[in-house]
């Protein structure tokens, strides 16, 4: 059926009602960027919607590639793995650093010192 009833149509759009994140908060984050002067309403809406899509995409990608799939869990390590391994999520590596054991960290520090000593 190509002709949707107007009533049903408006109900569907109401249900999809596009966004659940607060636009005002997204605007605040956008405005915290110093070189942004103003943002029109459509751009604000699109950024908010895109952020929701991003959250879904990040969660699902991390779950599907993660180690907790059998256990039905999503953990920090799955997200860090996604940030490291997936190109589009690479910009997240700074805020999603891979966690390593203190023991391993000390070892890598020692190695770095050894390398410095070579000079």
């Amino acid at each position, binding site marked *: 059926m190509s002709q949707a009833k107007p009533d049903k149509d408006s109900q569907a759009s109401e249900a999809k009602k596009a966004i659940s994140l607060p636009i005002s908060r997204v605007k605040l*984050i956008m405005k915290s960027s110093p070189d942004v002067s103003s943002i029109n309403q459509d751009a604000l809406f699109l*950024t908010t919607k895109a952020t929701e*899509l991003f959250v879904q995409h990040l969660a699902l990608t991390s779950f599907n590639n993660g180690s907790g799939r059998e256990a039905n*869990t999503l953990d920090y390590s799955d*997200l860090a793995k996604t940030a490291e391994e997936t190109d589009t999520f690479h910009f997240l590596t700074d805020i999603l650093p891979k966690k390593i054991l203190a023991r391993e960290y000390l070892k890598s520090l020692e190695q770095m010192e050894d390398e410095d000593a070579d000079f």
Partner: protein
Amino acid sequence: MAERPEDLNLPNAVITRIIKEALPDGVNVSKEARRAISQAASVFVLYATSCANNFALKAKRKTLNAGDVLAAMEEMEFERFLEPLREALEVYKKDQKGKKEVSEQKRKDKEKKNDSENDKSREDEEEEEQRMEEPEEEADEEEVEN
């Protein structure tokens, strides 16, 4: 400008709900993972804003528009978002237009009513309209300042 750093966080309850809706039923998402996704979302907003702003600057515009955001998505290699975004924007615009028409219709109806009734209710209506306009004006000022 944000006054407190926590103003730059997105509400946890909403983020949690979006995550739950994206994943299969019954997946347990750790608290740490939820916090990390929320932070990632804030960073995404900043990254997208910066990309979109570059497009606006290139076009010598001061105001970010829908095209800038869509171009930013492409640049960030989130092409998969383009189609759903375009659809959502269309629905949103329709809704906005619909709302405007409805409120205009209501105003006309009210005016008609007021013409036949006494002037008391008209004053009330005008007051209400002023109150509704105020927040918008504030938002505009804010945009000019920055």
